[in-house]
């Protein structure tokens, strides 16, 4: 058996595997898309989407989730960027502790976390679930804590890619104070990393079900779950919209990340 014929057989079997597994991933999307076009009787069209967007509960839930996601991202950035910066430069001894804490969201399942949150914050002295809005603030805080792993890893990778120490020392020797260093030197250099962390957080928060559900919040997750029980065609349109949002977030992360590595390699070659 020659090397080239075995390589060809190899290539053929890899193509077969790839096509086969692709079908597993594409069929549910195709089927859902097909259903979403059947909203009107006897004719394919976008009626299901129109009905979904016209639903009086859709926009409030959607906009509430967007506001929650944006608030989560901003708060998380404000907390994680200084933390990552500090453990890189000033308190490297704390790094293992911080890394351990960023593992916790994977160790504590969402359903367990919300169980504990309800038990801790639903009675004095820490009564935070008495009104809808205070629950909402609590929900955002929980999302912030859950975003730490993604945000910390993104920012940490970003800090590793630039030489923070040299940049900081250069800024210091030019007389910059810490605020200036953080906002005018570090942040702009971390744009790509911050954007990736932010978009990943967005993709996770926007349709989150478990925690929002048990905290009785009218966000997109519980809305979608309700929809699957009460409507026939709209859930398919909703699933396609949710998939498109996730695609958009991940696509931008990939696109920006690729741009960053390309420009970096260019510098390295020069």
């Amino acid at each position, binding site marked *: 058996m020659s090397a080239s014929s075995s390589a060809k057989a*190899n*290539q053929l079997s*890899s*193509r077969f*595997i*790839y096509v086969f597994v692709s079908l*597993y*991933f594409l*069929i*549910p999307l195709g*089927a*859902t898309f*097909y*259903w979403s076009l059947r909203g009107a009787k006897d004719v394919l069209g976008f009626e299901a989407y129109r009905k979904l967007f016209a639903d009086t509960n859709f926009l409030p839930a959607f906009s509430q989730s967007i506001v929650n996601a944006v608030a989560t991202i901003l708060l998380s950035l404000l*907390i994680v960027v*200084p*933390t990552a*910066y*500090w453990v890189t430069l*000033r308190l*490297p001894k704390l790094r293992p502790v*911080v890394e351990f*804490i960023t593992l916790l*969201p*994977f*160790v504590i*399942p*969402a*359903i*367990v*976390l919300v*169980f*504990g949150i309800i*038990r*801790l914050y639903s009675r004095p002295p820490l009564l935070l679930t008495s009104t809808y809005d205070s629950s909402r603030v609590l929900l955002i*805080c929980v999302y*912030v*804590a859950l975003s*730490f792993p993604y945000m910390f890893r993104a920012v940490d990778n970003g800090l590793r890619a630039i030489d923070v120490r040299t940049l900081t020392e250069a800024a210091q020797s030019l007389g910059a104070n*810490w605020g200036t260093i953080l906002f005018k030197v570090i942040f702009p250099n971390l744009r790509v990393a911050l954007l990736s962390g932010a978009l990943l957080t967005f993709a*996770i928060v926007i*349709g989150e*079900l*478990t925690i929002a*559900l*048990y905290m009785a919040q009218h966000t997109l*997750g519980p809305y*979608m*779950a309700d929809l*699957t*029980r009460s409507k026939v065609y709209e*859930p*398919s349109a*909703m*699933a396609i919209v*949710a*998939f498109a949002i*996730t695609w958009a977030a*991940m696509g931008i992360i*990939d696109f920006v990340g690729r741009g960053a590595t390309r420009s970096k390699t260019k510098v390295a070659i020069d």
Partner: protein
Amino acid sequence: MKPNTNSKSVNLTVGGALRPPRIPIGRWLGVLPFFVFSGLFLIAPTLVLAYRSLEGPDGGLTIGNYLLLTSETVVSSYGMSIRISLTTAILGGLIGFLIAWVVSMGGLPPRFRLITTTFSGVASNFAGVPLASAYVFTLGRVGVITALFKLVGFDLYRTAGFSLYSFLGLTIVYLYFQIPLMVLTILPALDGLKHEWREAAENLGATPFQYWRDVAFPVLTPSILGTMILLFGNSFGAHATAYALTGGLFNLATLLIGQQISGDVLHNPGLGYAVAMGMVIIMALSIFIYSILQRRSERWLR
């Protein structure tokens, strides 16, 4: 490498310097919000559950609640969770590994790798209600595939006894986010296999099979095993997808906790807390083993 020895000594010697990071409080200021948030919204809620799980019906510390974990309801829901998680971890691990291998060294055009990783990023984050809906429209009673089978005279539900709301159904659905997670985690490990190893093996007369059996596979084993354990935890803690699919009524550990939150279905609050802590313990174990195996694999794959 010993980082930062000089800044440490600066910090230790200066008491009242002007720059905030040099005084003790300022030194911690940058990390303080992080610890406060983690403490209030991750650690404290879990500690509350841990404490309550050790509380007896009339107060006082007891491990009685944990002994009750052997009761029938708990064992059957844990059992189902573990069965589904093991199955989807092993299947997802194998299929994901195959796909990663195919796009990294299977001779496909390079752009397939890019498409695959981007899609994996999307699909691994696509769990929850939309994924459940997508499968209802595919393999549910009126799903497209179910309908196609009916066209050729085969009733998936009546004849084959299939149900989307069963062990098999949930396994198929969970694989949709398990396989991509495997692909994303194992690709870097495959990239770490060095060209020189293959060349050296070939020069010594090894067949491709021997190379894989004696060189590549032993190097990859910790990564593969570790990622499968990660997949196990990923499925074990999953709640949203199963809730959306079954309305929260299926016999699964996460769904049991959900029912316990809405209304003490176990008729014993203490047992509810123990069930929740049991999940945390299993998750902690799997993440712990994963990180050990990951560290071991890093020795070779850099």
